[in-house]
């Protein structure tokens, strides 16, 4: 499945990818800035994400929250998201509104600062703190996506610290930080723009030139500290977290070759064999046969710098302790590593991945995001057309070689959530019942 792609670069460094598709009268605009939590300085965790919120508070010719309203009024959908090493902003609009979408993105790329005020910063700081409470603090297991990177990357590594940030650091964010972050990272030469859907390339090129052409190139960003880590942990790191949960849950992570490398495809297939859907090894043995797990999944972070992580996420049945759960999961991984994989299992994984890749090409927004991804990380958006072939080329032997090299107990990090002491819980409950009227 091949999509047409034209790609070029403006003199100010902005890389642009265009992919026409006239089946429906809509167009997706997608912008990746190559900046994320990895670029935060010490004492400012969570800033990249807070900054993403500020991008929706207006720019020189746009009022606070007006970006949202204008796109929705135009009949479009929109959002943004922050990740470890990139921040994206995207909208899908009726195709006759392409100019508006591009104009809005250009206004905030070129002229954000006139609209930035202390009050807006204070409000968005509170919104982000509420987001943290909602997704981390008031959620069972909510801290996993802070604790797992902290366990898997050493202190000082750009991926080690919390993406959403601590309350203390969020309190420290200043308007000067906003200005400096913007000037350093939100520049056309640090960005990729992708447009997919119902438009003409010549029309898009003209609009891009008109709106983005005058934005000056940046002055360069400071390089990230070295992202290099040993390709294996060298040991089995363990962290146990007593939490307000009723079922034990294990996140078992392995360092794997970075996304985009040849080794990564074999790792993805191995992950699918181990933990994707009901036909996977772990589901068959731990959920169905031995009934020690209530549910599970396997996924990769898809990091391109240094190393990536393959994670097995397994929730225990009520009567199974955290230690038992870890023992069971580790044993199945050992069996997989020592006993090899069948051709049927590899074919199944490839079939599932292939269907999912094809299905994901239907929506213009997803295509545009993929174009931005491949342009940002690899300088080549056309890789989107090679994805399926790359997975199809993975052989049984490559999967087994990967498992041998990377799934041993010298390359593991376990984050294990266990219910807090039940006796203490019962006592607290009784006390509360006694004092309530």
């Amino acid at each position, binding site marked *: 499945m091949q999509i047409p792609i034209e790609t070029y670069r403006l003199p100010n460094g902005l890389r642009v990818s265009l992919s026409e598709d006239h089946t429906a009268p809509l167009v997706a605009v997608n912008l990746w800035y190559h900046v994320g939590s990895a670029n935060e300085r010490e004492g400012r965790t969570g800033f990249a994400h807070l900054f993403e919120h500020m991008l929706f508070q207006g720019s020189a010719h746009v009022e606070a929250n007006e970006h949202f309203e204008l796109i929705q009024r135009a009949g479009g959908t929109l959002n943004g998201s922050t990740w470890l090493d990139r921040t994206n902003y995207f909208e899908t609009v009726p195709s006759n509104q392409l100019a508006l979408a591009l*104009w809005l993105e250009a206004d905030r790329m070129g002229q954000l600062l006139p609209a930035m005020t202390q009050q807006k910063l204070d409000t968005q700081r509170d919104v982000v703190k509420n987001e943290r409470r*909602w997704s981390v603090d008031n959620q069972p297991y909510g801290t996993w996506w802070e604790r797992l990177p902290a366990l898997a990357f050493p202190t000082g590594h750009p991926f080690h610290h919390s993406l959403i940030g601590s309350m203390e650091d969020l309190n420290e964010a200043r308007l000067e930080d906003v200005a400096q972050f913007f000037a350093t990272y939100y520049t056309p030469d640090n960005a990729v723009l992708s447009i997919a859907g119902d438009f003409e390339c010549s029309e898009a090129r003209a609009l891009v030139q008109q709106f983005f052409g005058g934005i000056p190139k940046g002055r360069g960003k400071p390089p990230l500290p070295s992202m290099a880590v040993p390709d294996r942990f060298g040991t089995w790191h363990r962290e146990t977290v007593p939490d307000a949960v009723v*079922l034990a849950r294990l996140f078992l992570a392995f360092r794997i070759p970075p996304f985009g490398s040849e080794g990564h495809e074999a790792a993805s297939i191995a992950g699918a064999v181990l933990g994707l859907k009901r036909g996977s090894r772990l589901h068959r043995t731990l959920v169905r046969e031995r009934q020690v797990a209530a549910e599970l999944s396997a996924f990769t972070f898809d990091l391109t710098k240094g190393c990536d992580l393959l994670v097995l996420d397994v929730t225990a049945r009520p009567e199974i302790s955290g230690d038992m759960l870890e023992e069971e999961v580790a044993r199945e991984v050992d069996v997989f590593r020592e006993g090899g994989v069948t051709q049927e299992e590899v074919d199944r994984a490839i079939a599932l991945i292939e269907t999912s890749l*094809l299905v994901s090409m239907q929506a213009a927004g997803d295509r545009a995001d993929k174009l931005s991804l491949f342009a940002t990380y690899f300088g080549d958006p056309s890789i989107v057309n090679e994805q399926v072939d790359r997975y199809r080329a993975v052989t049984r032997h490559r999967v087994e070689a990967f498992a041998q090299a990377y799934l041993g107990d010298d390359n593991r990090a376990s984050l294990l959530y266990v219910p807090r002491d039940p006796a203490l819980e019962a006592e607290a409950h009784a006390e509360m019942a006694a004092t309530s009227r």
Partner: protein
Amino acid sequence: MTTIARPQPGLPRAYRFPEFDRRTLPNGMRLIIAPVHKLPVVSIIAVVEAGATSDPRGQEGLAQLTARALVEGTTTLNGVELTERLEGIGSSIEPSTDWDHVSASTTVLTARARTALQLLGEVLMSPAFPEREIERLKRERLAELMQQRAEPRGLADEMFSRFLYGTESRYAEPEGGNEQSVGALVRADVTAFHEQRYRPGTTLLVIAGDISIPDAEQMVEETFGMWTGSALAPALVQDRPARQTRGVHLVAKADAPQSELRVGHVGVPRLHPDYFSLVIMNAILGGLFSSRINLNLREVHAYTYGAFSAYDWRRGAGPFVVSTAVKSDVTEGAVREVVHEIERMRESKPTTEELSLATSYLDGVFPIRYETTAAIAGALASMAVYGLPNDYFDRYRERIRAVTADDVLAAARAHLHPGQLQITVVGDPWVVRAPLERLELAAMTVYDTDGTPLR
């Protein structure tokens, strides 16, 4: 830097929802086929009138258990073989249960569509329901319930329904049943339920994607042509509220940094004549980012990451509910603002800007909803299960545009009932109880996380 004026839109380009063929087979099964030749994929959805409202009293959760057990093996393939066949062609079937229906769906490459349909057919018509797997699924449901109680959002949803609906209503219990009702289920219940509810006459099949009508028809005839039998009449839904007066319900969760709020009352059935006015009214009140409730709670007061209102559309009257999570020490303020916005909606017409934002959004976003075969198939399934006419999608946008400010006000006055709001808070009683009482909205009851009132 020169100022470039805000661009105007170009001429809108035409869009039409895909054409489809709608027919009933001789055995009573309904079939909708929508050829969509964009990518080589096909989505298939089977919708059976065997949802949670079909649960016999005392057997809440039977519909969901039966649906989940469908894929644990058939009379010709055991569970492992069935999964291998499906996933080997890149497919999977995960039946899902809602109040009125069970949906079993899959999306596959065109070349695999025939095989996928055959497997789907076996799953629907001849599941084996192995006892061991039924017991396993029951235990998985119990684990699910435990997780939900420990998790404030799921807990708030479950408790809200319990406070909203009378004990006679199936809607008062979770879709998947509770510990007692699920624990008591046996294999014979599942096989009887399947026998009574999974029949051609209660089944709708939707196929959308890279396939022609004759090919789809032929595949369906091959797979389902020999299916016979008639079903029990669909269950009548009882959707009466538990009380006609306002109530405040505090579910105590010690040390919660946030309160989960659910504020609402029983709404109206999907087929109510005021549907379009209510859709617009809800968008203005709390359905859009720029809605009254979200802007008030998030952008003005910074109480929350997000707040929204929604109608849960069902055959019967599902809830109208405002949902949000707020910092514990502003719980009282948030509740006050939500109630205020609901009352304000009834006071006067929306402004021209508010109305035009809602209507132009829902009008303009229409094609963006249907980019995938799965979304198209889902929309057609919805149309059919509610008995909507064939031109429903063709007329949708004009009906949205036709809603006036007077319509919105009339709908708000007829269907928003501030005096009947059930205000559910899952939060830290030490922080929120006293302030909530000071609001003097209604009598308050405090519960533990099992829903037992505390003295």
